[in-house]
């Protein structure tokens, strides 16, 4: 027990009559983009072929990657031979040193294959989850191919072993066709980071009064994993207390737990629910002698997790705006882009959301914003792009991660995640493996997964542990003298803060990103366990 005369931290003392000043939260500047918003109802079609997406992706990214490749390889002479550019993969001639751009396609032994399913008359609703598509015992079974509208070319060579590729990435490869008709690769170029908008470009620039007063924080959390039982909620309770400013003395700005009043917005990146909401169908069907019931069936539906989530949101919403992205386990559509969890799920919190759109209006940004996954938008002037983690998880199934150089496997794995995220940025494609191995809406006139502009913060939810890194793009060379070097540090090169967000229900971690410096801070909530 505490002796009262030791340090009392302001709370371990008799009540004082001192009046507490109300604390006000730093305002949030928020303008979500509707890149992944699908048309409602009848305007949503599923008859289109997925081929269009690959075609569009190649058409959009080929010029960029060819530009990069041209800068690097034009005039290059290797062993007395001039490197030549080839337009289509089918035009590659044997023995000729050349480079060509196209879409990567990987044939993996364990990859779900719709044709196989059809021949086996295996019409399951979802492919069983697989940890990896590769077959570590048989690395030869993995084939990497490059394709464009003309055809396919198998890539070989030792160089491929040192790189990571995934289906759907657009790359340029330098090499030569060998006697087998395979393309022996000696180098690969990527489109690299897309042009990055300046801060505040997306929306009204700062008006000094509001944004100038110190740094705010954007809070990220993912994988709340609410099950509705009492076992999961203590950390959540502490999180609620913290966000509402009950933890610590909010007045002291500089003490280590950043005052929660600095947090301008909470972004929840997927998997807010832990337990599956619908009970096992077979279990219920076994017992049913009654006539089939349509609509709400209390016996087959466990509302407790979503109710609990609703309560959590309703408790914090009076103080902090929330952006909620659905995840794999949330009650939203399964295929990407997942549309926001419907407001009807949130009888209490929906009072804070924007009014339902009328007719064809675009939905407005509410105080409580149930958004898509993936999602992009401008928060405090920064461009954010995030996904609930399916994109990273799926690419990792393409890649065999050898725990190399004796480093502990866990750190290799989480490094791999950061590396995959970096790769996606450099591929300029947020979800390259859609629609191949991630279910996706069949876009027809646009491939929204292309990152046309480089975000400032790129996050993926539901990762096993927290990781962050900053990456920088290539500084474009300015040959003409009059560059506008207005920035003090002259950083025209895109800089991206990458965040791999941990699952809250496993780590109890909340990630804060500073709105001025993009510095990262972690707050962990836990219950002390006596060893």
């Amino acid at each position, binding site marked *: 027990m505490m002796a009262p005369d030791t340090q009392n931290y302001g709370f371990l*003392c008799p*009540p004082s009559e001192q009046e507490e000043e109300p604390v006000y939260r730093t305002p949030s500047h928020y303008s979500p983009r509707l890149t992944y918003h699908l048309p409602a109802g009848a305007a949503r079609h599923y008859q289109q072929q997925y081929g269009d997406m690959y075609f569009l992706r190649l058409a959009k990214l080929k010029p960029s990657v060819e530009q990069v490749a041209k800068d690097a390889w034009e005039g290059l002479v290797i062993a007395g031979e001039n490197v030549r550019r080839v337009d289509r993969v089918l035009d590659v001639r044997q023995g000729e040193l050349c480079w060509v751009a196209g879409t990567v396609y990987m044939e993996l032994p364990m990859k779900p294959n719709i044709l196989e399913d059809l021949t086996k008359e295996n019409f399951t609703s979802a492919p069983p989850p697989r940890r990896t598509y590769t077959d570590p015992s048989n690395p030869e079974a993995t084939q990497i191919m490059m394709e464009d509208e003309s055809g396919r070319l198998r890539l070989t060579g030792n160089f491929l072993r040192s790189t990571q590729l995934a289906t759907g990435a657009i790359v340029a490869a330098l090499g030569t066709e060998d006697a087998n008709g395979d393309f022996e690769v000696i180098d690969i170029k990527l489109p690299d980071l897309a042009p990055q908008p300046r801060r505040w470009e997306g929306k009204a620039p700062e008006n000094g009064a509001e944004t100038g007063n110190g740094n705010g924080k954007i809070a990220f959390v993912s994988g709340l994993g609410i099950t509705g*039982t009492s076992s999961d909620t203590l950390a959540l309770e502490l999180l609620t207390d913290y966000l509402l400013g009950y*933890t610590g*003395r909010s007045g002291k700005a500089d003490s280590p737990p950043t005052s929660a009043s600095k947090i301008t917005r909470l972004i929840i990146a997927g998997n807010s629910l832990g337990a599956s909401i619908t009970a096992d169908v077979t279990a219920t069907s076994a017992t049913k002698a009654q006539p089939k019931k349509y609509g709400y069936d209390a016996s087959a539906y466990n509302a407790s997790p979503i109710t609990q989530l609703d309560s959590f949101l309703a*408790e914090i919403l009076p103080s902090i705006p929330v952006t909620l992205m659905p995840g794999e386990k949330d009650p939203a559509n399964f295929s990407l882009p997942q549309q926001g969890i419907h407001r009807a799920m949130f009888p209490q919190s929906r009072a804070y959301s924007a*009014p339902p759109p009328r007719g064809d209006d675009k939905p407005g940004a509410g105080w409580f914003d149930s958004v898509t996954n993936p999602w992009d938008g401008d928060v405090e002037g920064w461009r954010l792009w995030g996904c609930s983690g399916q994109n990273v998880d799926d690419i990792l199934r393409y890649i065999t991660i050898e725990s190399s150089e004796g480093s502990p496997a866990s750190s290799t794995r989480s490094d791999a995640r950061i590396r995959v995220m970096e790769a996606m940025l450099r591929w300029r494609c947020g979800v390259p493996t859609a629609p191949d191995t991630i279910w996706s809406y069949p876009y027809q006139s646009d491939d929204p997964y292309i990152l046309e502009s480089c975000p400032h913060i790129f996050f993926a939810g539901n990762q096993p542990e927290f990781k962050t890194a900053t990456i920088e793009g290539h500084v474009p060379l300015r040959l003409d003298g009059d560059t506008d070097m207005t920035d003090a540090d002259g950083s025209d090169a895109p800089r991206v803060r990458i965040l791999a967000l941990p699952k809250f229900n496993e780590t109890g971690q909340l990630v804060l990103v500073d709105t001025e410096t993009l510095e990262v801070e*972690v707050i962990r909530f836990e219950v002390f*366990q006596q*060893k």
Partner: protein
Amino acid sequence: MDSKLFLAENVLNEHRPVTYRSLSRALKVHANRAKQILFEFHRNENAKKPATVHATYVISGIQKTPEPAPANGNGSDEDKMMGSSPYLPSSMPDQDEASDAVVTTSIVLVREEDLEDAKATFQSISAIHVYSLEPSTLPDLNVLIDANRESARTHAQDDPLECGKQWGMIQNRNVKRRTGPRPPPAPVAKPPVAKPKSSAESTVPAKRPLQKEAAPVKAEASKPDEAKSQPSAPVPQASSKASGKAAPSKKGSLFSSFAKAKPKTKAPAAPEPAAQDVVLDDASEEEAEELFPESTEKAAAANRESRKEREERLKKMMDDDEADDEEMPDADEEPQRELTPVEAPPPIKPAELKEEVTVQGGRRRGKRQVMKKTTVKDEEGFLVTREEPTWETFSEDEPAPKKPAVNVPKSKPGKAQGQGQGNIMSFFGKK
């Protein structure tokens, strides 16, 4: 002092944990002050008699890095620049440098007896405060959640936007909350926070707004008192009971708002629930039933009866049979009812089938008439197939008492008798 009384009553007499937030809500004091009140109470009581009150604390600060238990997520969060490597580096730059770049703050809930151990794991501590008081050490800290939820439930009427300042919640000047289709007393937004942990009770939050409409009207006077004096009793139950007893007619009207067949006059009593988003109506309907389980014996009995009849009637409709005369108890209601437009003309009936049913022990047993096809050779040597009504006995599970019965009951029997099998639209349309 009021707070001492409150704590003595709850912690010492009723052996219930009190957290600083529940205290803050109950006494309408600032959370920071509530923490101090808890501390003082803890100190004073234990000074009088040691170990009468047990406390849990929350420590926030920075934990030492070489931390034994949760090794992930702390130290190794390198914050490095990955340069402008033209392509995916196959090996990342060393990450051991700047391993302390990411500040990790911990907010840890600790039992009183572990406090010193826990403090030892911290490198620097920025705050410690009492989280809760309870009569004895808690084997499972999760009961604290229940305490919080309970207090949230008890004080569900407090609008967080108004009371937040009192509690010490961080205020936000820009909050946007719609008032549109919701009933004006905003506190409705809060109650589900109170959602109890047992999933049985925790059905659908939709019921709360509903019951809010219904209960306060009659039970308003009594309820707050109840809630105060015995805050342990979940308010929803209290109110539902109150409304059930005090206002049986109200209950009827509630249903009637859903089951339109009831006399119109009572319906206006509960317009708000219906005014809520349409999506909810389905759910609320079910809730409504569960909320008032057999509030009066008579009603229940009536329900049962009419349900049974309805079932049989339905069955007969299915069997293409004309309703027989043995059971039309509610025919007298007929005049009250207005004809719904969807009522269909009576179709032609093939034959009359009868049914005799008894119910015992949850099984329905009885005899019923069914049409059997019999084929006989007649005297001229032709095969003749004839349909004849024959009796057969049956026994089946009594269908579980289901909520729709409550809604449909009275109207149906009367009508169906008149017309036998109706248009399918009338089946869906008229309840």
